[in-house]
Each structure stands twice: as C-alpha cells, then as structure tokens.
C-alpha cells in the first residue's frame, strides 16, 4: 500500500516524526542507562519498531480511544503522550515515575492519556483490551481500543478466545500484531502455522490487514481504516511486519540471529526512510531535522536528569496503591 504524503498536513507529518524520534532517542538512552545500571530487571527496547506505535497511535482520538499493550511498552506510552520524564523516572524506579516506581519498564500506565499498560504476561492484555472495548461499547463513548501484541503472543489461547468474543459482540477494537519476527529467540516462521497473521482474521469473520511496519505512513493509513471500521462495530486484525534492533530484553546476547540480518534491517530504518521521504518531497529541511533531533535529544537528557534527581519512594510506599 503506497501512501500519498499529500494526504497529510505538514504538522501532522512532523508530529508523527517527532513521536518516532522521541521513542528512538528515549530507547537509546534507556539502553545506556541500563548499561550503567540505573535501570534494572527486564527492559525491552522498542528500537526499530517505532513506525508501528507512532503510525497507529497517532491515528487515534485519545479523548475517547484507548491503547493497551504488552511489556515492550515504552514506545506506545510515549506515542500516547506520556511525559518522557515520568517514563524514564519509572524505569529508574523513582517515586516520580508514572507508577511511583512500582511498575518499572514493563508496567508503564498513563490513565490521563488513555494508555492502559504495560502487561508483562505474554497475551494477558488481549482479553483485557477487549474488556476496555466492551466498556466503550456499553457506555456508548464512540471510542475504539487498540490492542498491541507480538508474533509470540499470537499463539496464546487468549488470542482465540478474544477474537471470538470481539466478533460475536462486535467490539470496537483493532488487534495489532507487531510481528518483529522474533518471539524472544524463536523465529516466528518456526512456530507459526500461517505466514501472515492477518489471514486468521477471516476465520473469525473479521477483516484482516497487513502492512509494512517499517513504513509509518502505511501503518497510519491501515490503522485509520481499521479504526474507522471498528467505530462502526467491526473489529479487525492488522499485522504490521517490523523488526527489533536490540535483543528481546537487555540481557539477551542474541546468539540466534546474525549481525548481517540486523544490519540489513537497519538499512531500511523506518525513521531514516521517513526522513528521506520527507526531505525528498521538500517537506522537511535538513535544518529542521537537525533542530528536531537536538530538541528531542535535550528533552530526553532532561528526562534522564529528572529521573536521576528524583527521590526514591519511601518505605511507607510499600503498602500504598494496592487496594482502592
């Protein structure tokens, strides 16, 4: 699917680019901070997949729409509008983090921006997302829920159960499979009966879409279409084929794939490609791009400084936020 740039106003294109670059810069910094042991535990970076979150989430109206995702959640959180300071502070485990340092990398939440997490169990967020869509339908809000999950999660039973529920009740939901091709260290082709996940949608009476997850505009137009359908009570399944540059998590030595494969994908980098397209069409100047990267670089630096300087949660916080 080729998309006409002219379809979008410059501000919108710049907004999408900003989201992508913010995610990229944030993730690169998060990786550094992990290496410096400022961040611990499981930390799944989104580097390489920015086009999916940015393209998909930028198409939403977050005054009524919701986003639910799994543990590789920094990108979606930022795309929804979470302040990078709050996100970085959460990674640092500080009390200023979006979850007061209780969630960490895998459990970012931002209720204000309709971002409902951040789920660490593969596939567990899928029925929850359907529930959010159920609530939207029940309350007649006109909202849609985007449910992100990966090629690994696709094989969970929750997918079948939720696809079925979504269709029988015509929930306003779009299931987005971010196929980054590696379920931890397992190549998706090895464990998948189909070579296009969107093909399964038909079995549930839903429409399936597939798009190039490295082309942000293609993602954007595809999701726009799917979201419009979902608003009319027609749930759908979208596969966005993408690639992650880093290991599954920060402790992954990545022996299962070659550097050549990674380099191959880096050449097709979604941000670079988008920038090239924008500059080629004279929508973005070199100068503007430089300004943007600098501005975002400074913003993320600031987020790190904020996280660094923020207080730890006091011990009394151990017992808070558990029961309402």
């Amino acid at each position: 699917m080729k998309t006409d740039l002219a379809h979008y106003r410059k501000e919108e294109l710049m907004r999408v680019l900003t989201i992508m670059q913010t995610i990229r810069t944030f993730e690169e910094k998060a990786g550094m901070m992990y290496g410096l042991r400022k961040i611990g535990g499981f930390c799944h970076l989104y580097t390489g997949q920015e086009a999916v979150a940015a393209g998909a989430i930028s198409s939403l109206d977050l005054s009524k729409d919701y986003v639910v995702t799994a543990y590789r959640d920094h990108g979606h959180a930022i795309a929804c509008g979470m302040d990078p300071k709050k996100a970085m502070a959460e990674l640092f485990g500080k009390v200023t983090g979006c979850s007061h340092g209780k969630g960490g990398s895998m459990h970012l939440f931002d209720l204000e921006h309709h971002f409902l997490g951040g789920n660490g169990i593969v596939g567990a967020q899928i029925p929850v997302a359907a529930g959010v869509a159920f609530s939207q339908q029940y309350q007649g809000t006109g909202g849609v829920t985007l449910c992100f999950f990966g090629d690994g999660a696709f094989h969970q039973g929750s997918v079948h159960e939720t696809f079925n529920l979504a269709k029988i009740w015509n929930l306003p939901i779009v299931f987005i499979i971010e196929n980054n091709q590696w379920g931890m260290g397992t190549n998706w082709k090895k464990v998948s009966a189909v070579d296009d996940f969107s093909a399964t949608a038909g079995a549930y009476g839903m429409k399936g879409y597939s798009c190039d997850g490295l082309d942000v505009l293609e993602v954007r137009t595809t999701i726009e279409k799917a979201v419009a359908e979902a608003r009319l009570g027609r749930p759908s399944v979208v596969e966005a084929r993408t690639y992650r540059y880093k290991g599954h998590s920060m402790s992954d030595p990545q022996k299962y794939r070659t550097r050549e494969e990674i380099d191959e994908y880096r050449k097709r980098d979604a941000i670079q490609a988008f920038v090239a397209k924008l500059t080629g069409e004279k929508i973005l100047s070199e100068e503007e791009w430089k300004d943007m990267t600098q501005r975002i670089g400074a913003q993320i630096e600031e987020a790190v400084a904020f996280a660094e300087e923020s207080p730890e949660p006091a011990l009394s916080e151990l017992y808070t936020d558990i029961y309402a």
Partner: protein
Amino acid sequence: MPELTYREALNRAMDEEMARDEKVFLIGEEVGEYDGAYKVSRGLLAKYGPKRVRDTPISELGFTGLGVGAAIAGLRPVVEWMTHNFALLAVDQVVNNAAKLRQMSGGQISVPIVFRGPNGPAEFLAAQHSQSLGSFWIHVPGLKVVAPATPSDAYGLLKSAIRDDNPVVMLEAELMYAWKGEVSEQEFLVPIGKARIAREGGDVTLITYLKPIRMVEEAADRLAEKGVRAEVIDLRSLRPLDEGTVVNSVRKTGRCVVIDEAWPMASPGVTVAQLVNSRCFDVLDAPVELVSGEDVPMPYNHTLELAAQPSVEKVIAAVGRVLYREDL
C-alpha cells in the same frame, strides 16, 4: 423476616445492584437464557436485557479478562464462573491482572469487579469438580475474598463486593444454593472483613467458613450435650481476615479447631491456624487442630467422597484432642 434461599439472596443482591447502578452487569456462561447454571441469575436477563446480562462462549480466560478490561474502563462487572474449578483457566487474569493493575499503575487504575461462583465439593462430582480453591485466591494481595455461609450474608456480602472498588472473589457452594435463611427485607450491606460469631461459647473456638458451617454447628450441638460450650466463628471474609474476632475468641477459650474443606497445605485453614498460633500462643492449652479435606483428589465413590471431607465426627474428635478429653 422472610426466608430466602441462598440462591434467591444472591439473585436479589444482583438485581438490586443492577437496578441501582447502570454500570453493573453480569457476564458468564449460561447466565442469561439458561437463568444461570445454578439458577442464581434467574429472571435477570428478562429484566435487564442482553446488554447487561451477557451469555459468553465457554472462554473462562477470555470473559474473565474481558471483565477486568471493562472494570478498568469504568464498568462494574459481576463475572460468574460456572464453578471455581473452571476459573483455573482464568487464574492469570485474576492474579496477574485484576490483583495487580492498581499497584503496577501506581494507583492510577481501579479494578472494581466481582468474580463469583460455586466452590468446593458437592456430591458425586469426582476430582475435577469438587475442589475448594479459596487457597488460590487468598494467596494474592490485591484481591479480596469473601465466603458467605448464610443467605443473609450472601446477600449483604455480594452487595458490598459489587460496590467495592477492588477485585473481590466470592466463594459460594452448589449445595448451599438451596439453603434457607432469614434475610431482612430492608436493604443492608455486610462489610467485607468482618467475621460472624455464629454461636457463643467459652470452652473451645471452632472456626470455619462457607458450607461446613452447618456441620460445625451440628458438632457444636452434640458437644453441648456433653457439656462442652463451643464458640463457632464463621469467617465470612477470608481476605482481609477478621483477625480481631478470631483472636479475641481464642483468647477467651484457649483452644481452637479450624474446619476447612480445602486441602490442608497452604489453605485458608492453616492461615487461620498460624494467626492463632502467633497471636494467641500464650493462652493455648493445646496445639490448634485443623480439620481439613483429606490431602487427595476427590474420588467419585460416595463413601470415599464423604471420607475425604470434614465431618461432625472429625470435628468432635479434634475438639476432644484440644480439650484432652477422650470421652468426646
């Protein structure tokens, strides 16, 4: 006061709460057209329509998780599990999502949801359908767990559970649905976390919850004939546990028998026994006795099945041990 069955009491509670709050809805297998596998939701579909009384496919994981999602997005679902045995398919959604989302989000998100259904052995149902699984739920911080033993408590606790802003798991029992008891016509709530002293006595404290209550009361009657005045505590809530009522009673009697249908390891019963040991040590005249379900999968044969469960005789024998009376 009018008598209601346990089933009718639950039905009345849901009916009133659905009438009171548009956001309350019932979801589960056979809750609508079939009036509930155990007829607990009888008439609700007719009254509230399919939007609010939602029949699901046989997808415990799916509809339980969907309930959680609906709860975090502003609704108040009552999720009926046909039995707690089947809820094991949905444990992930209860434990990893319902109980955790509030804490993981630093308090941003609330999960006002009720999970309810029959729990524990009935008759002739064999290993997979006769399990008392309160242990699974009470283990998890973030959940509340209630287990009413009378129609009145079933009514009052279910209403409290529906109004609670936290996930509440409610244990019921198939054989209790037909139990009758007085339920005030006036609307009332039973607070979560408060035990009931079912009978007062000074010689020994018998602590139980859910279905064994009647058996324990019968044991108490028989003990009374032999001059032993047993205090019977119906816990009603397993999490949070009403520690005060338990501790005050055992401090009075110095002897304690806990009766629990669940298997003995890591069960509500041993949790209570541990509480008594730690808080009442100085007044105990005998180790706390636990009368639990036998540590075996439930057999189908009726004689074996009964032998696998607590009984009046087992309770009396345990009381004999804590009283050092061989004549009991």
